[in-house]
């Protein structure tokens, strides 16, 4: 059923892909940065401080997306006893972790000129901090547990617990009174953000997604070579 996911087949693609993804990332990022820093308009209320949105929002979106993917991959890996799903999940985690840090730090930088504070125990910020802790626990588990079976069980358990936090992050602005405004971009209903700001935001999101793909490919290739190194020891 999962023959396509066999490492030997995937490596043919993943070993060659990083250089093309890197090139594409540089092109998209250059366009995104030009749009975000120079071409997009300033906000009538926040003035130029709004430009921080172009790094803060994509970073938050991608860190949430990666954590959700890690959870589903871990559950699939566990249910179908497929080690490769765990490898894919493990390779996705570092970029998700870094994007989570970027979201928190750029959020703090944005908070100072707009809210007058670097940090507040607001529902959205606190739940993002909790997500970072889940990412940290997930990554640490891979380092401290040596037996595969144990690490698969523990990382799956961490992701299942952590995924409960994802809808809390998403709906925290609706459920509680927070400093954050409600979502301006909606898939099912009309977005309240103007296209002159939406397009740069989408370009930056594409650039960030390409970067996480690049890191994933490099990390996944490293993991496969690690396995092959162990294989050479057994010869």
């Amino acid at each position, binding site marked *: 059923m999962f023959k396509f996911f066999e490492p030997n087949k995937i490596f043919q693609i993943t070993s060659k892909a990083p250089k093309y993804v890197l090139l594409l990332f540089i092109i998209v990022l250059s366009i995104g940065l030009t749009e975000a820093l120079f071409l997009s308009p300033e906000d009538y209320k926040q003035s130029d401080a709004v*430009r921080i949105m172009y790094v803060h929002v994509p970073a938050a979106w991608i860190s949430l997306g990666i954590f959700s993917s890690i959870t589903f991959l871990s559950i699939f890996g566990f249910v179908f006893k497929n080690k490769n799903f765990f490898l894919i999940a493990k390779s996705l985690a570092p970029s998700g972790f*870094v994007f989570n840090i970027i979201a928190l730090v*750029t959020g703090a930088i944005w908070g100072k000129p707009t809210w007058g504070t670097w940090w507040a125990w607001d529902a959205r910020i606190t739940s993002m901090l909790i997500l970072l802790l889940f990412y940290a626990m997930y990554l640490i588990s891979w380092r401290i547990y040596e037996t595969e079976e144990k690490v698969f069980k523990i990382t799956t358990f961490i992701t299942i617990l952590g995924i409960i936090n994802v809808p809390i992050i998403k709906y925290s602005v609706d459920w509680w009174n927070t400093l954050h405004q409600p979502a301006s971009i909606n898939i099912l209903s009309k977005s309240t953000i103007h296209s002159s700001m939406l397009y740069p935001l989408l370009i930056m999101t594409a650039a960030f997604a390409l970067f996480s793909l690049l890191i994933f490919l490099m990390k996944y290739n490293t993991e496969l070579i690690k396995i092959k190194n162990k*294989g050479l*020891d057994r010869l």
Partner: protein
Amino acid sequence: MINEIISMNGYGSYVLSAFSFTLLSFSALYLITKSQFIKEQDKFVAKFGSLNSEKAKSAKSQRINKEILADATNN
């Protein structure tokens, strides 16, 4: 003109530090991941070099091993 662009109506230090932090994080993660990859690749090449001809032949029969070696020599 340049001062105006950098100042961004007084928000330049916030905007530029947020973008700089993001780009620095990207660079750090890329470099760390790349160095880990090169380290494992070098380990593989060294281990492969230490195999006797029979074992090397058996290892080379796997396509993925051949690709790792080819990739290492290209880099």
